[in-house]
C-alpha cells in the first residue's frame, strides 16, 4: 500500500473487554513500532519488531498488553481486560531498515481507543 494502514480508526470498548488493533505496514519494511499517544501528549513507545522478532517490549504498560507480527508483515496489538487508563490513540509506524537510526519511520493515522 501507499502508507501505513491501521484499523479500526475508532474503537469504543466497555471496561473489561478485550480489543485487537491491526497495523498494515508499508510493504517490505523491516521495522515496525507501536506507540501510545494520550490526549495532548507525545507518543510513548510500546514495542518494536524487526521482521517477526519482537526485540523490545519495554514500553508495554502491563501484561494485559500483547503484540505480535507472526509473518513479519501485519501486526496486531491486543489489550486484554481494558481499563479506562488505556484510552488513547495507538500509533503504528514502519521503517525500511533495522532500528531507528538512518531510517525514516512512517506513521499510520492511529486507532483511537475509548474505554467506557
Amino acid at each position, binding site marked *: 500500500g501507499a502508507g501505513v494502514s491501521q484499523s479500526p480508526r475508532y474503537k469504543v470498548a466497555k471496561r473489561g473487554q478485550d480489543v485487537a488493533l491491526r497495523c498494515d505496514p508499508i510493504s517490505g519494511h523491516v521495522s515496525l513500532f507501536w506507540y501510545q499517544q494520550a490526549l495532548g501528549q*507525545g507518543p*510513548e*513507545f510500546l514495542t518494536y519488531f524487526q521482521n517477526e522478532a519482537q526485540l523490545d517490549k519495554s514500553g508495554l504498560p502491563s501484561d494485559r498488553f500483547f503484540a505480535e507480527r507472526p509473518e513479519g508483515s501485519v501486526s496486531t496489538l491486543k489489550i486484554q481486560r481494558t481499563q479506562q487508563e488505556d484510552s488513547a490513540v495507538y*500509533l503504528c509506524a514502519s521503517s525500511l531498515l533495522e532500528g*531507528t537510526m538512518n531510517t525514516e*519511520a512512517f506513521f499510520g*493515522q492511529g486507532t483511537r481507543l475509548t474505554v467506557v
Partner: protein
Amino acid sequence: QQQVKQSPQSLIVQKGGISIINCAYENTAFDYFPWYQQFPGKGPALLIAIRPDVSEKKEGRFTISFNKSAKQFSLHIMDSQPGDSATYFCAAEYTGGFKTIFGAGTRLFVKA
C-alpha cells in the same frame, strides 16, 4: 518518564513571523534528534533531524539549532504560514536503540 522536555506548550504567531520551539534533554547517550509535525487526526511525520556533531541544520523554512554543551536544541520556522499550524514534537534517539523518545509537543497556531 520525560527524558525530553519541550516548551512552550502552545504558541501563536502572526503570518510571516518566526516560530521558535525549544527542547532539552538529559541523556548524553542520545545522538539523533528528529522533529515531527502532526496534524489533527494524522500520525506524526518527520520534518527535519540533526546529529550532535552539527550545530545547525536548515531545510527550506525550517532550521534546527543544536547546543551540545547545554543539551538543548530548538526548531525555528521562518516566514510562518497558516498551513504550518500543527503540533510539533521534538524527539531523541540513540544508536542501537529501538525507540524514539518524544517531547510533550507544542501546538502552533499561525494567524493569517
